[in-house]
C-alpha cells in the first residue's frame, strides 16, 4: 500500500483565543488533486499554511510524505525541528498565492532561478536552463526578462507557478490562485494547472472555480468553521451534497 502524500488527523490551530482549525482530517494520495472549497474565514488558507510548515499546529498530527510537519519523532517523543530543518522540508513543497508574491526586484527568469541556486545549490547555468524550460511550459518564454510590474496578473501567476515548480516539489499547494485575476485571464492559469495535474503532480487547490474542481479534482472537500464538513468525488459533492451547510454554500456560489 502506498503512503499518503498528506495525512492530517484532527489538526487544531488557534491564533490567540480564536480557534481557526478545530480538528481537520484529510488524506491526499500521491498524484491526487484535492480541491478545497468553503466560505471566507473557514480556515482554508490556514490549513494550507500548516501543510507548508508556515504555521505550527497546536494539536493533532500532520505529516507530508510520511514526515511529521514541524516535529521529529523519536520513540514516542516529539522534538520540535530547528529553522534550518523546517526550511528544508518547505523547499520540497511548492506554494502559489492569491496575490502571486513575485519578487519585485527580479525578472521573471530570476524569480524562477533564485531559490534553486540559493537553497538547493544548483549551478547557475543549470538553473537557468531549467528556468527557461519552465517558463516555456507556462507559455511565457518570451517574458523571461520582464519585471513583475511589466506583466499582467495572469502572466505573474504563471511565473509564480514556474517558480514553485523550479524546486521540483513533490506537492503543490494553491491558495485561490485565480481569485485576484480578471475573468479573461483566469483560463490561462487554470490551463497550466490542469496540465500540471495531468502530469501526475499531487495538488491541494483552494478555489472558487467550480468548473475546475468538477473537471480536474479527484476529491472535493467542503470546509466551514474550521472543520471539514463533507468530502467526496466532484460528482457526489457538487451534484448531490449530503449536508445542509454544503447545499447552502453551493447554492450561493453556483
Amino acid at each position, binding site marked *: 500500500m502506498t503512503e499518503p502524500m498528506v495525512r492530517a488527523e484532527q489538526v487544531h490551530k488557534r491564533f490567540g483565543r480564536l480557534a481557526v482549525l478545530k480538528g481537520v482530517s484529510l488524506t491526499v494520495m500521491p498524484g491526487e488533486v484535492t480541491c478545497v472549497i468553503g466560505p471566507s474565514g473557514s480556515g482554508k488558507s490556514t490549513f494550507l499554511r500548516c501543510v*507548508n510548515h*508556515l504555521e505550527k499546529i497546536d494539536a493533532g498530527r500532520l505529516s507530508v510524505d510520511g514526515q511529521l510537519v514541524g516535529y521529529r519523532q523519536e520513540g514516542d517523543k516529539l522534538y520540535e525541528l530547528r*529553522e*534550518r530543518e523546517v*526550511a*528544508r522540508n*518547505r*523547499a*520540497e*513543497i*511548492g*506554494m502559489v*498565492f492569491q*496575490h502571486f*508574491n*513575485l*519578487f*519585485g*526586484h*527580479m*525578472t521573471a527568469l530570476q524569480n524562477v532561478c*533564485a*531559490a534553486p541556486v*540559493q*537553497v*538547493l545549490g544548483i549551478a547557475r547555468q543549470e538553473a537557468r536552463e531549467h528556468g527557461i524550460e519552465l517558463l516555456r511550459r507556462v507559455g511565457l518564454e518570451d517574458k523571461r526578462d520582464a*519585471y*513583475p*510590474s*511589466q506583466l499582467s496578473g495572469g502572466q505573474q501567476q504563471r511565473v*509564480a507557478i514556474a*517558480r*514553485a515548480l523550479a*524546486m521540483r516539489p513533490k506537492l503543490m499547494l494553491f491558495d485561490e490562485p485565480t481569485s485576484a485575476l480578471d475573468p479573461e485571464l483566469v483560463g490561462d492559469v487554470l490551463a497550466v494547472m490542469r496540465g500540471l495535474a495531468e502530469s501526475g503532480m499531487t495538488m491541494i487547490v483552494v478555489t472558487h472555480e467550480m468548473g475546475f474542481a468538477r473537471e480536474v479534482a479527484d476529491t472535493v472537500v467542503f470546509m466551514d468553521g474550521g472543520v471539514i464538513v463533507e468530502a467526496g468525488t466532484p460528482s457526489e459533492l457538487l451534484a448531490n451534497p449530503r449536508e445542509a451547510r454544503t447545499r447552502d454554500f453551493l447554492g450561493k456560489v453556483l
Partner: protein
Amino acid sequence: MLLLVAVSIDSIVSNPRFEWDVVGDYLFDDRILDGLVLTLELTVAAMAAGIVLGVLLAVMRLSPNPLVAGASGFYIWLFRGTPVLVQLLFWNFIAALYPEISIGVPFGGPEFFSIQANSAITPFVAALLGLGLNEGAYMAEIVRAGILSVDEGQHQAAHSLGMSRLQTMRRIVLPQAMRVIIPPTGNETISMLKTTSLVSVIATAELLYAAQLIYAENYRTIPLLIVASIWYLALTTVLTIGQYYLERHFGRGSARELPLTPWQRFTRIVVPRHAEPATEPEASGR
C-alpha cells in the same frame, strides 16, 4: 524678485570685506585640502560603520527573540537620546575612564591583548567611534522602516521556497527595501558631511578645524569660512548626484520604464536619436 537677487549678488561680490581674493588664495591651500581629505575620510568611514550597524540593529530589532530585539532597542534609545557632541567628547576622554584596554577572559582570566587607551583612541578613532556609533542608531530606524515597507507576501513566498530568515532578508527583502532606504540615507550622508565639523572640538584637523587654524593665525575669518563653505557645498552637490543614480538603480522593477536621466534628456534634445523622417513637402512655392 529678480532685482532682489541681483542686488544681493552685487553686494556679496562687491563688498570688500568678503575678501574674495583671499578666498581664492586659500581655496586650494594644502592645509585646507588636507582637512578636506580628512572630512571625506571621516564621512565615508562613519557612514559605512553607521550603515553596517544600522542593518544589523534593524534586523535584530525585528527578531522574534525578545532579548535580541530588546538589546537593539536599548542601543537605539541610548545613542539617539544623547547629543552626538557629548558622545564625541566622551570617546575622546575614554582614556580617563579606562586607562588600559585589554581583551581577554574577564574576571582574572588570561589576557590576550592589552593597549594603552591613550594610544589606541587617537582623536581620529574617537571621532569615528562617536560619529559611527551614533549614526548606527539613526540608520537602524531608516533600515527598519525600509524592511517594514516590503509586503509580507514577499517573506511568505521566500519562506515557502525554503529560504531561511537570513536568506530572505538578504536576497529578497533588503534589496526591495533599498528604494525606501536610500533617500533618507542620502540625507544622512549629507548631514554627516557637515556633522564631521563638530569633530573640531576634539582637535581633529578636518575641513572646518583646518580653516579655524588658519584664521587663528591671520584673522581672515570670513574668507576662510567661505572657503570651507564652498567645499561643503561642492561635496554636497557630488553626493546629491550620486544619490540620484543610486535611486535609479534600485528603482528597477518598480516602474514600467525608468525615467530618463537629465543627461539623457539633454542629449535627446540636442541630438535626436532617430534620423528625421522625410521632411514635410517644401512650402517653397509660396
